[in-house]
């Protein structure tokens, strides 16, 4: 029989109808009569309970995983207005999905990662191939804070062997860090991390897309505090950025937030540029009194070498990455291209002239395509699993 994939998305503003319609259309689009598993996502302006209730009128009893998303990506709809929903349905006698979850992410990310890792480890089989990792990005406290993926991943890596391909993303409801939800079967959760273990006659190849290129010398971070990069080359971080940009650059310091990107080269420092070697770290905010940069994650440490990155105004890099992935498939049959893309890369927020998720769709051709817009992305850069910013993570699931 093989694998059937049904994908549907819409932007109905009624949460119940949105869920019901997406589930129904996913069944129809995939010609699915015995759904085995569903990935479900709804925009931050939706009521997740009503959305799930709508889904369950069509898919009662079907195992499900998903949650809030900043936007939805599919063959037919790419949107981020807050009302998009997406359903990806699987029916397969080759690929299995098992869902694990762990709460209290807001209390201790490392512990949550450890507990999730333990649960996954006990269920690992010889044919376990991949792990999709989703988590709540927003701590829901005042003042708002992010849950960090860095300790979560550090803890989890101890329980999951290198042979398992891992990718994921942090859920984000909107740019206001509003309440964010995770869905596991019929439960609506918050402050949870979800692991979807993918097993069977399959594989999951991943690639990162950001299109950014270094545009400065290597500089060394000399002082940090959690996600704060306080000093670079022993100078206040903002002063050093001013220096790197050159005198009279004219960029308002407030505009560094969600724009200024530092790149960490995980490959050979002085060999030719390779996009896949670079981990992008985006500036969340600036702390002007301390002349510091506030990063999304606390992984940049004293001694980290970084470069200032500039965004590509040319969409061609997308096609190159996807074509490269496809060429490495060999005899494997791709069944789903699942794209986890940074919300900041959506066209209205990125400042680039093209919609990268649309460019991905064009490059994929006939391969079924779905995904969501995230807060933070997770993928391997070089051999290191790490949180990423302003990055798209392509997960190509194939039958082998």
């Amino acid at each position: 029989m093989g694998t059937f994939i049904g994908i549907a998305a819409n932007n109905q503003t009624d949460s119940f109808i949105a869920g019901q319609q997406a589930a129904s259309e996913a069944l129809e689009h995939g010609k699915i009569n015995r759904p085995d598993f569903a990935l479900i996502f709804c925009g931050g302006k939706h009521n997740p309970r009503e959305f799930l209730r709508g889904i369950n009128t069509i898919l009662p009893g079907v195992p499900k995983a998903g949650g809030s998303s900043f936007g939805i990506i599919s063959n037919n709809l790419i949107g981020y207005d807050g009302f998009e929903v997406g359903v990806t349905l699987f029916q397969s006698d080759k690929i299995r999905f098992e869902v694990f979850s762990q709460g209290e992410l807001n209390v201790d990310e490392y512990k949550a990662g450890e507990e999730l890792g333990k649960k996954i480890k006990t269920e690992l089989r010889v044919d376990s191939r991949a792990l999709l990792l989703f988590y709540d990005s927003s701590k829901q406290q005042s003042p708002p804070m992010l849950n960090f993926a860095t300790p979560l991943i550090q803890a989890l890596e101890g329980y999951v062997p290198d042979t398992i391909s891992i990718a994921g993303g942090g859920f984000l409801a909107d740019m206001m860090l509003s309440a964010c939800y995770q869905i596991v079967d019929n439960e609506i959760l918050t402050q949870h991390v979800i692991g979807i273990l993918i097993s069977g006659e399959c594989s999951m190849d991943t690639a990162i897309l950001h299109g950014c290129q270094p545009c400065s010398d290597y500089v060394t971070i000399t002082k940090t505090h959690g996600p704060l990069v306080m000093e670079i080359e022993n100078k206040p971080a903002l002063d050093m950025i001013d220096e790197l940009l050159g005198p009279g650059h004219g960029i308002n310091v407030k505009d560094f937030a969600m724009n200024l990107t530092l790149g960490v080269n995980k490959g050979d420092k002085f060999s030719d540029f390779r996009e896949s070697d670079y981990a992008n770290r985006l500036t969340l905010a600036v702390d002007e009194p301390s002349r510091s940069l506030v990063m999304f994650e606390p992984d940049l440490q004293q001694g980290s070498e970084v470069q200032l990155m500039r965004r590509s105004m040319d969409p061609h890099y997308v096609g190159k990455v996807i074509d490269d992935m496809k060429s490495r498939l060999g005899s494997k049959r791709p069944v789903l291209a699942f794209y986890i893309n940074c919300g900041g890369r959506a066209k209205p927020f990125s400042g680039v002239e093209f919609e990268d998720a649309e460019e991905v769709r064009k490059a994929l051709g006939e391969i079924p395509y779905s995904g969501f817009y995230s807060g933070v992305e997770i993928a391997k850069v070089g051999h290191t699993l790490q949180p990423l910013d302003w990055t798209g993570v392509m997960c190509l699931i194939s039958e082998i």
Partner: protein
Amino acid sequence: MSNLEQQEEAQKQINYYKNRLKALSSSLMSLEYANANLSKDVLQMSEGLSVISELQLWNTESKLEVLLDLLAEKINVRLKMDVTLMLMRVKDHSSEYAPHYIKSFADYNKERALKVRLTIPEAFHQSSVSLIANDDSDTDLLVVALRNAFELDHFILCPVIHDNKVFNYIFAGRRKQLLQSGKGILKYHQNILEAIGGVISAVQNQIDRNVILEKLVDKRTEELRKEKEVSETLLLNILPYETTQELKVNGYVKAKDYNIVTVLFTDFVGFTALSSELSPQELVTEIDHYYRTFDDITHKYGIEKIKTIGDSYMCASGLPVEKGTHAEDAVSAAIEMRDFVEMAKEERKKQGRPFFEIRIGLNSGPVIAGIVGVKKFSYDVWGDTVNVASRMESKSMAGKINISQSTYELVKDKFDCSYRGKLDAKNKGLIDMYFVEPRS
């Protein structure tokens, strides 16, 4: 050149190119940041303009409530607002406004917002300008009232101008963004909302025109109804109701056989002599006076007036709807007609004025009734029964009601009838005749 000098020269070149690269990168980054900000604004502007262009695709059937609901939804989604609503005046001439058509995100307390009643200061109302609020520290009373009412940090209040007056206000707002350096509400939002306001005004214009048109249509319909009523009344004067219905449905009326009806004729005695004493106008007025009363009497007894021929009034009882009391009703009507004429005669005698006397004849029997011809048609009855009834009238006497044997048989138990014997009727030979009077 020594090695040291060569190294120094190489380092100089490296520094030169590094500085050039830095300068180029700097200008490139500046351009990219500027471009990023610009393209974000342009994209949002085009989203806003698309709301306006999509308006032409909406089928609202010019229903304002449908349009306002759709607009609120589109503004909220496409302009990436968090809350959009229409502030409508609570009552005419009041400065109090209430929110309607609220569109918001899932957690927004819509019920609370719906209870809000806002007073728009008269000075602001009269100014007909939009209000944009992005600054938390703005202490303007209206800004503070709106911020507290709808719990938003950035918002716009845009008046919809219709007929040179504020028709309603569009309110749209955003929460404070944490992950993007959101600029809140910008001037182009105002331009778009004002353009949308123009569309609302245009629809309201259409509605106003429709109201005027509907009133005209109602007026014309009423006129037509009255005209139809007049036509039908006129038709009913000419034809029996049942016959008019048959005519409407079929376009023609089939002549119908009646087994037995009672036909009544009246005639004014001495009409010709009196005609010479009165002017034609006076004569017609006189006859009209009597015939109006006869019409009332026949209507009262459900008798069908057939026609008048000069001073003769002809009617028939028992058609077009057959009835068992046709003879009795006809005789009762005849007595009332006769009594009315007699009463008038007595009064006029006293006044010394000329007067009429009447003789009446009735006969009962089969007839055929219907319409013939297509122009100035009228309902009529035919048959020997009609001829005999006419003979009964001509053989009657002034102030008397003469009935035939067949009528006598039908009314003899209810009226006093006196046999007159067999009298000669023109072309009919000797016929039994009776005078009839009310039971004494």
